[in-house]
Structure formats: structure tokens, C-alpha cells
């Protein structure tokens, strides 16, 4: 399949999830913007939540993503399967950190 074809299919696949993508962008942007208005940077000190929860999200995603697709981690078989699963789980973990880190920063600052 051509690159154009792959991009087309990805775009059509994303269409039903645009609302979720938009929601995730909002959830990402709101704490980032609010935090930065109060001096937050990526290198700022976060909190226990931003240290513990992202790894938990990563590990949970390893199991939950296959379940979400009506499958099971037991059927993750080929190197492509593992690459996709670990990559998606890392993505979930990073997203959790991007949301939680500024929230923890602001909470610490308030305290």
C-alpha cells in the first residue's frame, strides 16, 4: 500500500475519534497553560502523582489496550505487536505525565 493510501486510511480511522482527540488536547493544554502562567516548565519539580502515576498508566496500558480492542495481552505475539503495544503504552504514560506534572506543580505551589 502506498504512503498516500496509508495516510488516507489513518485519516478515515481517526474521523470517529476526533472528539476524543480534541478532548485529550484540551486536557493537555489546560494544565500546561495554567501552569506556565504560574512559572511551570518541564524541568520544574512535580509531585508524587507525576512520579508514580505515569508508570502505573504505562503498565496498566500494557494490559488494558489489548482488552480495549477485545483481545488480550496473551495474543500479543509478533515483534510488531510488541512494538505497537509498548509504543502505545509509552505514549499513554507520557500523556499522563504531561497532564499530571503541571497539576502537581501548581498543587505544590499552592501548598
Amino acid at each position, binding site marked *: 500500500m502506498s504512503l*498516500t493510501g496509508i495516510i*488516507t486510511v489513518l485519516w*478515515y480511522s481517526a474521523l470517529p475519534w476526533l472528539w476524543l482527540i480534541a478532548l485529550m488536547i484540551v486536557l493537555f493544554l489546560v494544565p500546561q497553560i495554567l501552569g506556565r502562567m504560574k512559572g511551570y516548565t518541564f524541568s520544574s519539580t512535580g509531585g508524587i502523582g507525576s512520579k508514580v502515576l505515569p508508570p502505573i498508566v504505562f503498565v496498566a496500558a500494557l494490559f488494558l489496550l*489489548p482488552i480495549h480492542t477485545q*483481545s488480550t495481552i496473551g*495474543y500479543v505475539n509478533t515483534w510488531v505487536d510488541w512494538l505497537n503495544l509498548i509504543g502505545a503504552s509509552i505514549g499513554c504514560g507520557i500523556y499522563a505525565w504531561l497532564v499530571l506534572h503541571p497539576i502537581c506543580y501548581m498543587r505544590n505551589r499552592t501548598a
Partner: protein
Amino acid sequence: MTRRKNPELSMSSKNTPKANERRRDLLKLGLGAAVAAPVLSVAGNVSANTVQTNAHIVISGAGAGGLAMANRFARSLPGARITIIDAREDHHYQPGWTLVASGVWDKKKTLSKTGEWIPSRVNWVRGMVTEYDPDNNRVTVSNGDTIDYDYLIVACGLQLRYERVEGMDTNLIGQGKGVGSVYASIDAAAVTYDEISRWIQKGSGTGLFNLPPTALKCAGAPLKMTFTTLSRLEDTGRRDNFNVEFMTPSGGLFGVPFYNDFVKQRFTDQGVVRNDFWTLTGIDADAKKAYYSVRDGEDQVKDYDFIHVVPPMTAPDALLNSPLKFADDSPFSDWMEVDRETLQNPNYPNVWGIGDVMGMPSNKTAASVKMQASVLEQNFLAYLQDQPLPARHNGYTSCPLITGIGKAMLVEFGWDSKLLPSFSFIDPKEESWTVWVMKERMLRPAYYAMLEGKI
């Protein structure tokens, strides 16, 4: 070739469901405009050329093939009059039916409206072609219209011949008599799931899974239904209480030797009894008995608690009663005659075929239509310009072979069973979660992109 102006067309154009299309377009625009711009600049339409013509092109059938060609021609043939003939208001994503019958999908996920996929400049005549008259470039429609054409695209799909299984009636499906069939309709697929559930709840008994003695669409579907049912039986923890048997009229399970051997081995491993050269000839639904003819053997009768009936299939009667079919002595005598590489009818060069209706060794899948649509468009445009036909269909077909609920193999092959993998990084001989995700999440969007002529 005669070219006549058809007064029926202006009448049928009144029925074009522009409202649906506008709603769809607005929805897409509203949701995606900001995100879409950079993507769509790359993921544009696949039509390579346009040809100016005032020809009248009639497409018989608004299934996957007919809609794909309508959308492609609407872009690549400005000026052409395009008419599509089909009575069905609902469009079905049929590759999802096995997922419905396995309890993975709700049936609503497979449904859309035919009108949503028909371009506004295409006339939609609601009816089915009842007679093909290629000598006079004319088709007769079930609503009484006769429509003349310059060029005809036959995309009318196939006919399920349940009546060739004595005692079988689609009304029996899902009625608590142990009869299921994923092919009959989306409702039949949904109640087939219920019927399998009843059998499982019973706690024991025999399930019979069948292949037909003819070519069939989605040839992997009978296997998928067996594998997903095995998944459900194994999940009960009482697999040994259930007897599962699979009947093959030809002795083969799959056209490609590697997968044939794979499925045979998997059936052995999962305790499926194979009965080769058995053909389902009748059922007694009240007595729950199935009747089989056996090659070189005596007829057999089997008791069952659940039976998955896969009907014999042929081209629709209208086509079989026309000069467009293969000759009676051909192995494809029940199908439309086309050159399998150019998709052109050799006797009537202004008639072309796409999809299930054509007589080919395999190629009755939506994935085949995706490949055929591109070939047909290129060749048709060249033919209009009196140029040599440039494209050749390589027999590509694809079947994400579900080997259990949650895993699948990406089977892609062409003529002579040659493997034609689309993705170098996906091993076509390995069961995979990724392939399952593709089947469950991505092939439906890909199908809709194909309908719109985007891929």
C-alpha cells in the same frame, strides 16, 4: 454501438439523496477542517486522469464495487452521465458481519445509507436490473424502466442460493432451532450469535460448520465463524463437552496451500473433526438433522445442536439469463464473463465487471474490489480514448483470517495463490494482535475510503 438519450434519467435524478450527502459533508467539514487540511493535501483522490465525455455510463449495483466506480467516475469523467441502479436503501459493511455473529460488534456498526455514498451528480435509479440486453445496450429494471447505455459496469454482486439446500429457509436462522448463517443478512448474523449462545448455554452438543460446493464471497468467513465459536467454547472451560465438525465439499479448507495446512493443523489441535468431500444437501430444522452427500461414499445424516449453513452462490439470475455469463462448459458458468486481468467482457467490450459477480478463482472480497476499482478505472479511461488497456488485475484478494477472538492473520494473495503482502513488516504467516486491531478498527474506515474512491 447505439447511443440513445434516455428520458428515464431525468426522472430518477429527482430521487438523488442530496440531503444525506450534504449532511455527511458538513459533518466531515465541521469536525475535521482544522485537522484535515494538512492530511487531505496528501491523502487526496486517487484518480490519475480525467477524460471529457458525454457518454452515458450505467452501473448495475450499488454495493462496494458499484459505489467505488460511481465515485471514481464522478471525478474522472466530467461531462459523463452516470446512472447507478440499486433498490437497497441500506448499505452494509459486510466484512463486519462475522464480527457481529461473533458478538464482537453491534450490528449498527455495519450499517449506513446507500445515498450517503452516491455522488450528487450520479443518478440513482431505485430498482434491480432484471434483464441485461447487451446487444441493444439496454437494461431493464424491476421498477419497469428500461435504460439505454453507452457503457455498462456490472457490479450487481451475487445471489445466495439457500434454496439449493433442501429444507433450508433463511427464516429458520436464529429461531431456536439451531440454524445460523452469517451470510443471509445483518439481522441473520446477529441472531446467529444468539443461536450459538443458546448452544453454548446448553452446555454440550454438536456444532456443524460447512463450506458450499460453489465459489463463495469472503471465503474465510466460514472458517472465522468456526474459530470465533471455538474461542467462545474454550472460554466456557468445558470445551470437551462440545463436538465441533467442519464439512468441506472439495476436501480443501483454503485456496492457498500454506493456510490450508495451517487451518487443518489448527483444527486438529483444537479438536475439530473434519469431514472432507461432504456437501450439505438438506436440513430438517425441527428434527435438527443435516443431510450430506459424500463423494465416493454413501449419503450421511448428522444430528446437530447448531449448524452454520453457508449457501451455494452464483451470479444473480438476471445475469445468468443474459449473454454476459460464461459459456456453459466453463468452470465459471455461473458467473459473469470478463477478462480476469482487464475486467472487460470479451464479447461486449463496452461492458465491464467488478466485484463478486465475476467468474474468477477467488476475488470475492471487499479487498479485491479495492484493487479492481483502480484497474477498471484506468482501463476504462484508456478504452474511452482508444488507447491500449494499461492496467492488469493481479488477482489480489485479502482476508484477515480471524483465528480466535482477539487475533488474526493478514492473508493477502493473488493469482496462483501467490502471497502479496501489503506491509513488509507484517508476517503473513503469523497470528497477530496488530492484524486483529486492523480488522476490528481500521478496515471499516479503509472500506469507506474505498467507496469514496480515495484509495
